[in-house]
């Protein structure tokens, strides 16, 4: 085969791949290229921007805290248990990753809405969370927790089982093994999972709209503010979008940095 043909075939693969890369990158570049600093400042100056930013920070940090608090022990249990029941639970817990956000919204309404399955049985109707800030947090936890649990379960599974057996042979209790051994060893994977989970919560739109509504200052998060701003002034929608892209980019860098450390931290020490 001629050198020319080898080069040509290599270029076919490069050009084909680059076409998709360009399609993915160009819209993001357009966000930055089609604005000016004065337009960006004007966009950020709209009254709906800062309440939405404040609410997004408040709700996503709260949901992240809840996801870490409950998701870390869940991931540890999933990583260690062998039974079929646990495997089934693991699959069910990951389901919100693949179901459409609108379906998540309907499901949350049917479970926790004013006429929900659990309302009136587990708690009085006046406690129903739908269309409140609590509902925003619940929607964010529902859609973002599986990302963390999946990453954390993988990180815990990478821990050499012999480390745990040795620790137990010293008399280490399950909580001591969890806090002093599993958490530090899985830390890079947990950080990456937390960043992914937070990014998903920050971008949550469909489930929040259906379960919490779009009430300024109360349930209107940044993605919902973009949706609303499109009807007022594109500059506001664009400014919020740019803020979200920058945050997402920083989170992505965090994930990559954390994951690059993962194998060293979780592996055995021959």
């Amino acid at each position, binding site marked *: 085969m001629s050198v020319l043909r080898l080069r040509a075939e290599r270029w076919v693969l490069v050009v084909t791949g680059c076409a998709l890369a360009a399609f993915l990158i160009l819209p993001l570049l357009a966000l930055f290229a089609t604005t000016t600093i004065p337009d960006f400042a004007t966009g950020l100056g709209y009254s709906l921007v800062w309440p939405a930013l404040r609410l997004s920070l408040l709700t996503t940090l709260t949901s992240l805290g809840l996801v870490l608090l409950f998701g870390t022990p869940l991931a540890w249990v999933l990583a260690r248990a062998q039974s079929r029941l646990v495997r089934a639970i693991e699959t069910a817990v990951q389901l919100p990753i693949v179901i459409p956000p609108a379906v998540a919204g309907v499901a949350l309404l049917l479970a926790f809405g004013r006429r929900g399955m659990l309302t009136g049985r587990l708690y009085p109707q006046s406690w129903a969370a739908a269309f409140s800030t609590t509902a925003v947090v619940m929607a964010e936890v529902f859609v973002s927790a599986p990302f963390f649990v999946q990453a954390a379960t993988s990180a815990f599974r990478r821990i*050499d089982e*012999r*480390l745990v*057996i*040795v*620790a*137990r*042979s*010293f*008399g*280490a*209790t399950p909580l*001591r093994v969890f806090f*002093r*051994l599993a958490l*530090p*060893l899985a830390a890079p994977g947990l950080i990456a999972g937390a960043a992914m989970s937070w990014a998903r919560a920050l971008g949550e739109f469909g489930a929040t709209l259906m379960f919490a509504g779009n009430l300024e200052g109360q349930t209107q998060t940044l993605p919902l503010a973009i949706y609303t701003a499109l009807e007022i002034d594109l500059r506001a929608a664009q400014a919020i979008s740019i803020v979200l892209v920058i945050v997402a980019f920083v989170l992505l860098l965090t994930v990559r940095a954390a994951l690059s450390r993962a194998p*060293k*931290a979780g*592996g*055995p*020490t*021959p």
Partner: protein
Amino acid sequence: MNAPLALQVNIKARVGRLVLEVELETGPGPLIIIGPNGSGKTSLLSLILGVLPVESGYLQIGQNVILDTERGIDKPLEHRQLGYVPQDYALFPHLTVRENIAFAIASSKPQSMLPSSAQRVTELLSELSLSARGGQRIQTLSGGEKQRVALARALSVSPHALLLDEPLSALDVHSRREVRGFLAEYLQRLELPTLVVTHDAADAQQLGDRIAVLEDGRITQCGAWGELVARPATRFVEEFISSAMPPS
């Protein structure tokens, strides 16, 4: 150390397709377990640790019964008081040498006894010539040093018996010879019931006085190296011994 004098093992278990039926007893010193690959050597240690289920059996260290299926006794690993050093040592990579040992002591003792743990760590580091390495990360140690840290850590909790799985297999040929001499002398001095699993004839010859041969889940011969040489019970023993002999 006020060590118990014996470890009695009488275990029946199914591990995958292998049926293990092992009965043996160590004195106050090392008993070496040899056997071909897949004969159940490492599984035997896992059964003694309690991380694999037994069908029936009995385990006793000194006067302390840790397993008796007839009487419904099955102590969890945390209460078996066994020192365990796995094949790759399983040192905690996020901790320093000193912290590895302190972790073990803190896991075994109530919080009120912790002030004495720092002193115990220092004693052990000195005993195993590791004083200069206390603050170092595990990754910076040589193979021989890692082995000594794993031993110090296992002994720090005053175990009633010691289980070593291929203690020298992670070392290169040169350090293996060096560490083997140290380990043989140290284990004799400990006077602690010890099981050492190995596939290496030189290790088997030097690390203990008695050798048990495990084949296909059963002990086929048990005795001193000289007895195995004089009267090898199986073809495996014959081949194993000849691997230790210099070529004629």
